[in-house]
């Protein structure tokens, strides 16, 4: 109950970061248990590899961490922004895929755009399509009071199947690989990052896929921080999230807030999709399969671990991408790829869950305090 009281000297921010770090350690411990169960002989080495994360691969590995963190920062912001408004955006996978397709289609077909700007036009299309896809559950919630989780899940599937259909019936389809074509002309620029994050294989530059997308993600995170903490709009949205009765009382248009925050969240996820899939030959492509994008769902643990704080989300996205890279290098040991996926997912999700159980940790702490009190006071205590 007096959590704030005890932590105050530390500062609330630091206390929150501490709880996130504890949560991560819990996640790693559970991951280690699975490593032990599946392959005891290599478990310790395996944990080492995971903990080394992106550093396993030298500069290229670090670049890959940044590359994979890019969409995670954005989906984390997307989910976290809605958390601040009291909404649960579980629709990031759908918003991402819709955004990605719009980006790819524009990148392929918008021949009137001068080539150096093509990627920007494509990214803008991705943002707009994502915004639209986020606004739909927002509309349903505001007008018909349909819970956003239901509408978001439906939009995820409609988005995924719809995009599969559209890919197959448009000129962005590569039937041989059953995926979208290479986005050579509309690829996100490297901005020189490939000259920093590479590994040397003999005389061959093995460059990481990292590109200017990471800068875009960082800028948007900072912008989000400013919007939430400095603007009238942010004040209204947070008020809705904290107490919707009081915000109605204050004359804040709650429905408008619900719609706008889901639309903005959709836009962020759409950009995440664009940054991920506007990639040349070596990068990621949308494959025509019936699964929702993991990067979308991973926005949820990222937002939780970052406590919905835009700056915190940058760090938690980096952490998740880092552990993910650790999983990639775990293939060097004798772990099956499926098991690796499980282990990584377990670490990420257990970290997030551990954070949700912060109260349990707090309870433990106050029990320890109490025991200390008891010792100090000595005997004569009646057991309760």
């Amino acid at each position, binding site marked *: 109950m007096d959590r704030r009281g005890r932590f105050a000297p530390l500062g609330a921010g630091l206390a929150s970061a501490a709880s996130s770090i504890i949560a991560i350690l819990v996640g790693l411990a559970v991951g280690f248990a699975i490593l032990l169960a599946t392959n005891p002989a290599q478990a310790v080495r395996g944990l080492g590899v995971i903990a080394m994360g992106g550093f396993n691969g030298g500069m290229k590995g670090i670049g890959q961490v940044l590359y994979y963190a890019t969409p995670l920062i954005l989906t984390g912001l997307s989910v976290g922004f809605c958390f601040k408004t009291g909404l649960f955006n579980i629709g990031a996978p759908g918003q991402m895929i819709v955004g990605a397709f719009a980006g790819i289609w524009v990148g392929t077909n918008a021949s009137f755009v001068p080539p150096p700007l093509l990627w920007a036009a494509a990214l803008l299309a991705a943002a707009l399509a994502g915004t639209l896809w986020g606004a739909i559950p927002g509309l349903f919630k505001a007008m018909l009071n349909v819970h956003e989780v239901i509408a978001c899940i439906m939009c995820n599937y409609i988005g995924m199947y719809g995009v599969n259909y559209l890919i197959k019936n448009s000129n962005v389809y590569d039937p041989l690989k059953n995926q979208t074509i290479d986005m050579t002309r509309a690829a996100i620029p490297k901005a020189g990052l490939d000259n920093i994050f590479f590994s040397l294989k003999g005389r061959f530059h093995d460059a990481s896929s990292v590109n200017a997308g990471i800068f875009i993600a960082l800028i948007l995170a900072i912008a989000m921080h400013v919007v939430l903490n400095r603007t009238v709009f942010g004040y209204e949205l947070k008020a809705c999230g904290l*107490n919707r009765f009081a915000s109605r009382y204050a004359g*804040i248009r709650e429905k408008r807030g619900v719609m706008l925050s889901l639309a903005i969240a959709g836009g962020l996820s759409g950009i995440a999709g664009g940054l991920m899939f506007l990639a040349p030959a070596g990068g990621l492509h949308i494959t025509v399969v019936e699964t929702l994008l993991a990067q979308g769902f991973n926005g949820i643990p990222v937002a939780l671990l970052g406590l919905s704080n835009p700056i915190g989300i940058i760090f938690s996205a980096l952490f998740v991408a880092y552990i993910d890279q650790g999983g990639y290098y775990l293939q060097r040991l004798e772990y099956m790829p499926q098991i690796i996926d499980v282990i990584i997912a377990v670490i990420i999700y257990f970290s997030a869950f551990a954070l949700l159980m912060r109260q349990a940790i707090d309870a433990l702490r106050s029990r320890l305090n109490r025991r200390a009190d008891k010792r100090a006071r000595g005997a004569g205590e009646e057991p309760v």
Partner: protein
Amino acid sequence: MNNAPDNFIIEMLGITKDFPGVRANDDITLRLRRGEIHALLGENGAGKSTLMSILFGLYRPDKGVILKNGRAVSISGPNAANALGIGMVHQHFKLVHNFTALENIVMGMEPTRLGLLRTDQARRQVLALSEKYGLRIDPDAKIEDSTVGAQQRVEILKMLYRENEILIFDEPTAVLTPGEIGDLTRIMRSLADEGKSILFITHKLNEIKQTAQRCTVLRKGRSVGTMIVKDTSVETMSELMVGRRVDFSIDKTPAKPSPSPMLRVERLTVKSGRQQKPLVRDVSFEVYGGEIVCVAGVDGNGQSELAYALAGLIPADAGRIYIAGKDVTRSPVRARNMLGLAHIPEDRQRYGLVLDYSVEENLALKSYFRSPFQRRGFLSFAVMRAHAERLMRGFDVRAAQGPATRARSLSGGNQQKAIIAREISELPNVLIAVQPTRGLDVGAAEYIHRRLLAARDEGKAILLVTLDLDEALAMSDRIFVIYEGAFAAEFDGVKADARELGLRMAGSGKRVD
């Protein structure tokens, strides 16, 4: 074995509790005798709720010990308190909003058989309890649809249902009508006669006079002393508490109403979502600038819904509402506010405050979007801070860490003062004040009454909705009695007679049509 001298059931010895920026309890000693009613008196923010929360295990004291029957006990939380036979009625109710009254009362103590809930038995027990103590509730009403008064009764029944031997009442009478207060004090006395020991917080000195044997006075976190109530005058008690004499008399000049009404209501009808029976039935009245019009009534007769409908928080089903001559029946809240409507809501924590916002953010809740608070979409925190500092000084809002304090950590009375400060400072044309002095200490209540009268004399139209007869009589120029959703009588504020008013509120006598 009972080695406690003088038969103290609870002794809180040298209790100290620090919150960031404030020592809420400073070396307080309080001894509760078995079977006594012990009042706790103190200004807003004096530390009463904190001390009682410590006894109930919600906070750990930084220093001091608690003895029960002379033995030290460690109260680690509400469950431990319950195990020790300690129950508490909280100032800010701890009820689950989307549960019914019945579910809230039996929660955690549900009678079961073979693991199955025995709702019928629980219902019978609760209804019997409600009957026995005269605490009217609708067992199936959801808390979120209930008035604050109804929630208070549920909160009291919830504690009584648990059959504890030590009962803490933290301002249980702040939202009850005089009749209910009479019932409650009777209940407390009979509980004490049964051997239960009661701690009772109230700001109403006559209630202390009527019920308590002893009274401990707190001031700024320290205990000023414990006195025998029957040997102490009301004046002495209030002087001890505030540190100065409190002038209870209010002198009121005759009203000078404006030529045209600021608030006009025509045949307003409000229905609730579920019930078809209207909560407000065909109500018409006007409030002119420069007068205070009171809506008096027993809780649950539609006055809450009337106020919410006027403020635009629930829709009107029929009729018209005009503010400063403009029809606002269908207007959103913001439009009404811009026409000069201010509203001190009945439920301060639900509507009045964003508890996790700071005091300064809360004080800007009605003005953040206007210049100079807003510039090109950005908030000016400097303006917000200056505004907050001014209001906090003007209305004596005490917050441990100044304007940056979370509203949640303010004492109940200081939360109320913050809301009043914000609403009065909006320079309204029309102020709807619903139980404005709920939970204020006598000094603060007196001050707020003066401010309301000053606003009236400046020409504002004030609609006062209150359950407190004394307040209605002291403040009003005209009084409407609301009964079952309709206006049952109108009185002249000066000539009104308390007894007759009380009778009309209880529903006797003919209606005006």
